[in-house]
């Protein structure tokens, strides 16, 4: 059952004519970059293209499409980075896409003129498996041998010439980060047409395989590895010693039965702590920057609809998008470091048993972990899960992980009702509550995943089979590039939606514009709207003084402006919607004003805070720490005069926010990633229903127990 190597000279002459005619018509050649995951493909791609690259998605699927321009001495090559592959058998999206690119079937991607096969010298046999498949596409192949320096350290001596001879294609040693071998690689690719396209064919001989394995595929794989063993034995001089490798030594600690889990937990905690604390400064800067920009636009533009649209719709919307960028960049910084070092695979290895109990893949831990910062990159990260049902289950539960946008909501509720309170005398009640909210999200996610995997997404467990790549130092360039690319994708994908929704929600809260618009400014605050009386009282109380001075006059003017804002919101469509849904949310202890805030926070959860500030006349720039707002929430009254908020209402609202999908951007990303409206709608419906039920139980149960 030897591989039949056909020297396809006849076929080549046809191809030659075809090629040269194409070549004369276009100046640039198309080169596909293929290789195993962890073979150094990304490093090579970055080294060859520099910053001249763009990242998008293949249409209809969520396989990342990376392309770049590779400057050659006499022109340029369009470099198409195929997804990392072990095989081309089209059992996954990645493999299907790679096949389609190589056969020229994919719209918008021309059939490559040459393939660069990235081969890890330290892992020659398995890497060559893909090469034996690439050789069958009748496209000239150049092998780029990476990790040569590491191989030498492992006393592996590879006879490149021999390897080239046996494979029938040029083999170039490349050290991408030093740009060593890059010129040779360019030459080899340029000369691609000069060398023979050997028509490799690994045909399975059915008579021989019958007793071996009924599936002919298996015998084909076997034949390829037989061929590879031969190549390996002839071209690698020093057989690798079986002594414990460096990675194995590290793994004795990092994947240790006990310490491994402790280290994993510590790393995760550090990552989150860093994301939350480091992202704060740029986020605050962005927020105040956009605030200042809004103020500037407001003062320089004539008052009116345009100014409102620009300031409250567009500038606030763009700000709302950008404010998430620091967190996303930091998250992807850590993810790519963890991936580049090889630790991510270990984490999946450590957690697979746990995750598989809930029907999830070990790889699901990464998207779920990411979702603690923001469900959007988390859902984007589910692409690493090959099985569609596993992936879908992970997407469906990702929004239960308490994302950072919920923190302002939790923080406001805690600052308002539970500040300074402790449990057992020393543990802050606020911390306990936040922990409880995180736990509630996680437990719900587990239960939902368990149910989904036994009902709608029932399937045989997909293979876990996963490489544990050797530990390596992360490549700074790869890390930065990945961070930048993911940030950009977020801006493009979620950004446009968030902006659009911001404008729609602005319109909901800004229309209809009150007829007495400007006139109302002159009218005394108390006459604006019946619902606005109590905050005036609040203002007087908090002032607590009798003699008006200049500061107080300015304050009063500001108060008047805030009153006006609040009145406009209460009159708006959003305000009316709030009234409309009041009967539905009343059993949760929410009045219509909270209803308005719930509607507005569909843009993003933290919008709840600013909406509450507007509706309670606390000024719209208030944040969750602002005393004005905290006081306003405490003092807020229902239309019948009873307090709108109790500690129980606050806890109920927090529970609602843990479970509800209060985020249009997440909905938009789910639609994109699942490519299905039914799943998206299913998610919105079941999460809202769950949130409502849990909030109902919390409030009514709490009331029965005598709280609130």
């Amino acid at each position, binding site marked *: *059952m*030897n591989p039949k190597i056909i020297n396809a000279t006849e076929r080549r002459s046809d191809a030659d004519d075809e090629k040269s005619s194409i070549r004369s018509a276009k100046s640039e050649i198309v080169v596909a970059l293929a290789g195993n995951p962890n073979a150094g493909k990304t490093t090579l791609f970055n080294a060859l293209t520099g910053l001249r690259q763009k990242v998008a998605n293949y249409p209809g699927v969520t396989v990342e499409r990376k392309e770049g321009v590779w400057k050659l001495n006499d022109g340029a090559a369009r470099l198409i980075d195929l997804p990392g592959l*072990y*095989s081309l*058998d089209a*059992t996954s999206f990645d493999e299907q896409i790679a096949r389609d690119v190589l056969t020229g079937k994919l719209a918008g991607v021309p059939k490559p003129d040459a393939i660069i096969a990235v081969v890890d010298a*330290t*892992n*020659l*046999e*398995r890497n060559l*498996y893909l090469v034996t498949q690439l050789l069958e596409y009748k496209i000239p192949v150049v092998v780029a041998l990476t990790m040569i320096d590491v191989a030498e350290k492992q006393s592996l001596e590879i006879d490149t010439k021999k390897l080239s001879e046996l494979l029938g294609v040029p083999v170039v040693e490349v050290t991408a980060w030093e740009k060593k071998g890059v010129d040779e690689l360019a030459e080899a690719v340029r000369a691609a047409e000069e060398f023979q396209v050997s028509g490799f064919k690994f045909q399975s001989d059915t008579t*021989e395989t019958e007793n*071996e*394995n*009924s*599936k002919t*595929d*298996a015998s084909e*794989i*076997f034949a390829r*590895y*037989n061929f590879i*063993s*031969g190549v390996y034995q002839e071209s690698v001089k020093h057989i*690798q010693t*079986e002594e414990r490798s460096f*990675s*194995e030594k590290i*793994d004795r600690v990092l*994947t*240790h*039965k*006990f310490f*491994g*889990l402790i280290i994993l937990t510590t790393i995760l905690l550090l990552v989150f702590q860093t994301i939350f604390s480091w992202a704060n400064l740029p986020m605050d800067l962005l927020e105040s920057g956009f605030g200042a920009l809004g103020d500037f636009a407001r003062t320089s533009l004539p008052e009116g609809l345009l100014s409102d649209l620009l300031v409250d719709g567009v500038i606030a919307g763009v700000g709302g998008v950008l404010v998430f960028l620091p967190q996303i960049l930091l998250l992807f910084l850590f993810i790519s470091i963890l991936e580049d070092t090889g630790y991510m*695979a270990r984490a*999946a*290895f*450590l957690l*697979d*048993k*746990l995750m*598989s109990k809930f029907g999830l893949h*070990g790889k699901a831990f990464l998207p779920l972990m990411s979702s603690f910062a923001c469900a959007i990159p988390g859902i984007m990260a589910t692409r690493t899960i090959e099985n569609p049902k596993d992936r879908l289950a992970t997407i469906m539960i990702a929004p239960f992980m308490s994302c950072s946008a919920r923190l302002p909501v939790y923080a406001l509720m805690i600052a308002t009702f539970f500040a300074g309170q402790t449990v057992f005398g020393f543990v802050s009640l606020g911390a306990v509550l936040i922990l409880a909210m995180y736990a509630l999200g996680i437990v719900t996610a587990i239960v939902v995943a368990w149910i989904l995997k036994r009902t709608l997404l029932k399937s045989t*467990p*997909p*293979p*876990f*089979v*996963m*490489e*544990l*790549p*050797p530990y390596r130092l992360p490549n700074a360039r790869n890390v930065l590039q990945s961070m930048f690319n993911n940030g950009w994708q977020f801006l493009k994908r979620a950004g446009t939606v968030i902006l659009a929704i911001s404008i729609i929600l602005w319109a909901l809260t800004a229309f209809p514009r009150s007829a007495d618009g400007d006139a109302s400014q002159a009218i005394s605050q108390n006459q604006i709207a019946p619902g606005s009386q109590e905050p005036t009282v609040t203002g007087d109380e908090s002032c607590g003084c009798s003699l008006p001075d200049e500061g107080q006059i300015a304050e009063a003017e500001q108060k008047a402006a805030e009153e006006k804002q609040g009145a406009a919101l209460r009159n708006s469509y959003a305000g009316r919607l709030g009234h409309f849904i009041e009967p539905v949310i009343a059993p949760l202890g929410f009045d219509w004003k909270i209803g308005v805030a719930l509607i507005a926070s569909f843009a993003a959860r933290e919008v709840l805070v600013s909406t509450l500030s507007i509706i309670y006349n606390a000024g719209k720039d208030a944040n969750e720490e602002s005393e004005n707002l905290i006081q306003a929430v405490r003092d807020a009254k229902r239309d019948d005069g009873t307090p709108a908020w109790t500690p129980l209402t606050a806890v109920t609202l927090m529970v609602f926010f843990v479970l509800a999908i209060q985020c249009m951007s997440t909905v938009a990303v789910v639609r994109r990633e699942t490519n299905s409206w039914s799943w998206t709608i299913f998610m919105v419906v079941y999460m809202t229903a769950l949130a409502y039920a849990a909030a109902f139980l919390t409030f009514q149960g709490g009331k029965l127990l005598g709280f609130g």
Partner: protein
Amino acid sequence: MNLTNMPIGESAKVTAVNGNNQITRRLMEMGVVPGASVRMIKSAPFGDPLEVRVRGYHLAMRKSEADQIEVSGPQSEVLGFKPKM
């Protein structure tokens, strides 16, 4: 012997990869074909998955997957496998 039952630190040769499914295929593509030698490295904290070394690299798989791989120790006769180079 099943790969699952192989003690940690032991090496053996793969004699057969049973089954005819996606898992078998993936395992074989990753180099776990009859004739390849595998060494059991460790099992994860909860006993599953397993880590083996094959063709010079480390591969993790669940026990249910390792169940499909038959191995024979280095001393024992390699049964049911004839190298076909």
